[in-house]
């Protein structure tokens, strides 16, 4: 059968999209639909699984199979889906509350097990759906309905957490980066195993502009760095800034090429297979450092679902399952 290639429009559903006007979720939806079209997904073999939250309404808007589950449990449900049918292309959508607060344990274990799926964590640093309480990624001091005097918790760094959990693919994107995001998502899809993508998403109603200090388009060149494997980590409007490893302090620093004798050779080359480097990069925060986006860590190994099926097949191999024989194993006796 010769099918027309699908366009991103083919991945739109007939459901009215129910996010607030101006919500960052719209842009991400578009980026995902574009990605699905770009990679030639077949809708019937694609499943979107989500938890509960504004972000988790996502599956209703993608013309594939979808499961809008319960709060925090999407990674577990998605693991079941993938184990049951490894041919399905599984995408997980979650929020900072859904995936890192109530769902932190399942997130930990889906990453540790390395179940083959794409995990998109929409981080808006707030609980959108329940009207604006602070979340585990909210900045210290966040005033919210549940923290009228400001939050005192230390926030979690989702990518640090993911690496600590054993993730083999960690990436970052920004809702409005309509060019960069589909590229990152394609890489995530290509990676066999759990691919974790933190997407900074602006909640215009309850946490507007939290990311503005590094997402504003006009300053982006100086406040973001999109890393590429094998490339020196250079950024800035004039491509004159770079990340340098300071051995004395055992830490990264921003240097300027041409100043203090710094040359391009002093700039660290991004090695996406190096965990240590990834751990370092995900911790950088603006304004002192650029925020690192793109594929930060990619170091594949066999996925859990692969290994499970391999073991199943090995156990089955050469055996003709005979249920009656199973029941008769061990000692039996006959009454005549």
């Amino acid at each position, binding site marked *: 059968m010769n099918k027309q290639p699908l366009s991103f429009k083919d991945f739109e*559903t007939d*459901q009215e999209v129910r996010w607030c006007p101006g919500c960052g979720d719209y842009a991400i939806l578009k980026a995902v639909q574009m990605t699905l079209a770009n990679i030639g997904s077949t*809708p*019937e*073999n694609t*499943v*979107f*699984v989500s938890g*509960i939250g504004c972000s988790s309404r996502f*599956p*209703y808007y993608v*013309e*594939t*199979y*979808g*499961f*809008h*589950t*319960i709060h925090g*449990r999407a*990674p*577990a*449900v*998605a*693991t*079941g*889906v*993938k*184990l*049951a*049918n490894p*041919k*399905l292309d599984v995408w997980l959508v979650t929020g900072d509350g859904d995936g890192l607060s109530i769902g932190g*344990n*399942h997130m*930990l*274990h889906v990453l540790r097990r390395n179940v083959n799926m794409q995990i998109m964590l929409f981080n808006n640093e707030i609980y959108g759906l329940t009207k604006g309480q602070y979340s585990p990624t909210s900045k210290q001091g966040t005033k919210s309905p549940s923290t009228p005097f400001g939050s005192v918790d230390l926030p979690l760094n989702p990518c640090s957490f993911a690496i600590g959990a054993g993730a083999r693919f960690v990436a970052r994107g920004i809702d409005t980066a309509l060019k960069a995001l589909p590229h990152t998502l394609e890489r995530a899809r290509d990676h066999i195993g759990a691919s974790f993508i933190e997407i900074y998403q602006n909640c215009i109603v309850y946490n507007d502009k939290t990311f503005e200090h590094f997402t504003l388009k006009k300053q982006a060149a100086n406040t973001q760095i999109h890393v590429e494997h094998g490339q020196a980590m250079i950024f800035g409007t004039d491509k004159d800034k770079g990340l340098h490893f300071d051995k004395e302090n055992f830490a990264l620093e921003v240097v300027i090429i041409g100043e203090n004798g710094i040359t391009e050779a002093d700039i660290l080359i991004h090695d996406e297979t190096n965990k240590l480097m990834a751990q370092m990069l995900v911790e950088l925060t603006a304004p002192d450092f650029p925020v690192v986006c793109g594929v930060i860590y990619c170091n594949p190994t066999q996925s859990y679902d692969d290994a*499970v099926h391999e*073991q*199943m097949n090995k*156990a*089955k191999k050469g*055996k003709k*399952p005979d*249920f*009656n024989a*199973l*029941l*008769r194993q*061990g*000692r*039996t*006796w*006959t*009454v*005549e």
Partner: protein
Amino acid sequence: MNVQTDAQDFEELDSVCVRFAGDSGDGMQLTGNQFSVVTALEGSDFATFPDFPAEIRAPVGTTFGVSAFQINFGSVEISTAGDEPDVLVAMNPAALKVSLSGLRKGGLIVVDEGSFNERNLHKAGYSENPLENDSLSDFQVQKLDITKMTLEAVKETGLGKKDALRCKNMWTLGLVLWMFGRPRKPITDWLEQKFVKIPDVALANICALNAGHAYGETAEVSSNLHRYIVRKHTEEETGEYSTINGNQALAWGLVAGSELAEIDIMLGTYPITPASALLHTLSGLKEFGVMTFQAEDEIAAVCGAIGASFAGKLGITSSSGPGIALKTEAIGLAISTELPLVIVDVQRAGPSTGLPTKTEQSDLYQAVWGRNGDAPIVVLAASTPQDCFKVGIEAVRLAIKYMTPVMLLSDGYIGNASEPWKIPDINTFEKFPVQYCTDPKGFYPFKRDPKTLARVWAKPGTPELLHRIGGIEKDYDTGHISYDADNHQKMSNVRAAKIAGIANDIAKQTVELGNAGGKIAVVGWGSTRGSIHQAVRRARKEGIDASHVHIGNIWPLPPNLEEILNSFDKVIIAEMNMGQMNVLLRSQYLLDAYSLTKVTGQPFKISEILDCIRQQVGADK
């Protein structure tokens, strides 16, 4: 090997109950199991119950480290592991201490005198040696220095003392085999096979076994050791038999269901006593398409199973009370999305952590009512080890046919207890192949079969049936999210009606024993079956017009149950909780029954139920 079968020496018994008790390290489970095998091979009916300590390996010699195995066997029908052992084999002071209270007055105690040293007495909390005062005067006591005799018996094999002492249980088994005139060959065969790689260990064990047996043969006439004969159970149907416990039967029943439904199963679970055995068994059955997923917790376990069901396999999840509690929210999701799911609850004593190794039937409320919202599901209960097999199949059938979660209640008692089982032939069962929806014509995800009210099952991967489901209320006609007032009423009604309608697709309630109507019925459910059965049998022998009604379909209840219950003057509801089935039946039938309850972590004794019958019948006069 010649077995002494001179019937003259033997006292004939209809049934007898033997309890082996010793330290966890004494191999009592093994001894009991091997004795059961021989009992089985000899054709007696039997029921066994292993009684494990709560600790993995408690310090040697302590009361909480005692491990026991009880077997009740007979030429008559046996359905419980026995109220009061007739024979107690106690390998150390702690074992004696723990087991004594249950022993029949006048029963026989065989003790390893060699272990009654000061250290062990102290550990067991004895200030005096009970073998040396008159504290055991209610019983016949046979003191033997099993320790010493075992060491002597295996001396020749050259085994070190520690290993040699490990053969004490075989010495004991040899003696008990002698007592009941049972052959040693099945045991020696098994020992040879088990220790094929360490032949001196095999030899030592066999020497000990033979020595114990020989001791019986040569014992002085003045001893308390006598020989008994327990004949074949002749009412047994012909066919091939094996010994089965409830956990094993349940695992196989679920796989049988999957074979009959032609669907693969995926067990999502998390270890917990006493439910882990199901995982252990199913994880070894990969060639039957059984996938097991040991999740990070019970919530992930049930969610994984739900995900598998969404993807077109049959999701199963298993746990015990505290773990089932954790699954509550997710079970609601399966109800709302109407996905098939089997939830196995191997109950244990609660509340909270409770008594993990003790049995109870106290999760009935949780099974029937324990969810937020109006959230009906199917609840089934297994009543004997072999019943677990059938109920396993039924759970799979109902889950798939009605696209619903099914809660299957077992408990720690039937999970571990075993009995002879006439091995069924899978080919004689009716198949119920799963029907996935593949037709795009008029498809919507909550389209229902007008008869069963089950929604269609369209699995991902099927072209043109793309759809999205979730836990928010869905439109009756389109399956899309709906906040509409009347629609929620309609959906709530149809969810309730679907489950209620299953009442017409389950076995009719029968009367197990006795007349369908009359003076008094004892109603039970789950693992109380054996005790109730025997109690009613005895009551009938006493001339009391008693019947036994045992409920397997807990929700929905069989439609004819109400009529049956109303046909008795009096109803006793016997259960191992504080009266949960009683409350359920009161609420459904306005039934004013007598609630007989027990929560001691131990099964009912036949006598407890019999006493209650007598009393209720008396009180009725």
